[in-house]
């Protein structure tokens, strides 16, 4: 019974941690992508002939900005399915 309580506590806090990791990461990534795309639209409106060149850079930057968020998502998924913190309990 004691062990079940401990497992439940570890799972609960891990769940909260995963939620924070994914939520805050998504917040940062979306705000960053929004700012970058707004600048792209501004530049595209001023100079339509630059659109192809800028578009390639936009996709590149999209991947770079998403990087930390996706890394956080990967770590979150790792904790969700193979929680190493449970290993200390042997369960």
């Amino acid at each position, binding site marked *: 019974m004691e062990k079940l309580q401990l497992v439940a506590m570890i799972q609960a806090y891990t769940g909260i941690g995963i939620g924070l990791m994914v939520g805050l990461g998504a917040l940062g990534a979306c705000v960053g992508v929004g700012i970058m795309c707004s600048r792209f639209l501004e530049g595209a409106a001023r100079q339509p002939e630059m659109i192809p060149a800028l578009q390639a850079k936009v996709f590149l930057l999209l*991947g770079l900005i998403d990087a930390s968020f996706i890394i956080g998502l*990967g770590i979150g998924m790792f904790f969700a399915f193979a929680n190493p913190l449970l290993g200390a309990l042997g369960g």
Partner: protein
Amino acid sequence: MAAEQEALTPGSYIGHHLAFFEKPVGQGGFWTLNLDSLLVSVLLGVVGIGFIWWVVRGATSGVPNKRQAFVELACEFVDKQAKDIFHGDRSFIAPAALTVFVWVLLMNAMDFLPVDMMGWITHRFAPHGFRIVPTADVNTTFALALSVWLLMIYFSIAVKGAGGWIHELFCAPFGSNPLLWPANLLFNLVEYISKPLSHALRLFGNMYAGEIIFLLLWMMAGAGLAGTVFAVPLALAWAIFHILIVVLQAYIFMMLTIVYISMAHESH
């Protein structure tokens, strides 16, 4: 699926699909080979680069056929990216970038194959699990990123000399006053550690998270009629988005390879 050997719970389904085809060569997790990543990545490398080599071997300078035109398009695309970033002799960087791009693209594209259908084939020799996407294995992405890191260090020393490189480690970017040496070293160490780390983990995170989301969607689809009705459009949307991610991540990996190696050629 191994439904007759174990009860099919959500956890066991996902756990089964996240299990590697392992071969221990020593004690502990570090000395365990992930044979699935090794086999699939080597196979895809041979197929991809071999295809390009085979087409180039039979290339003609007259009117090209479609295969040759395709390979020429790919080579010109990568060469243009390298030329835009690196203004020196790109006889090493451009082929390295092409290799990285083709190989990572093929490895990422293994994510398009449905895992349960691949299981029909792989269950014969790997009943506990077989991961078909090598870049969803952190070992593969770190191998690629560490190779680029070693190239970075090699070119830094080759261009600036060992003494020049050490000087740059201690004196750039803040200045050569001895009081600033610890700050410079710290700055450069952080840069040298964060580059391969982010290079590897970006690709790994995208592929691993993509696979997990697919598995979760299939789990939802297996949970009754309501689950299937909601999961199929979501899975379709995610699959289409994932096509973009696969190509984009290969492109980003290639661009960062070019950028890191060209930055190693610069001196401050």
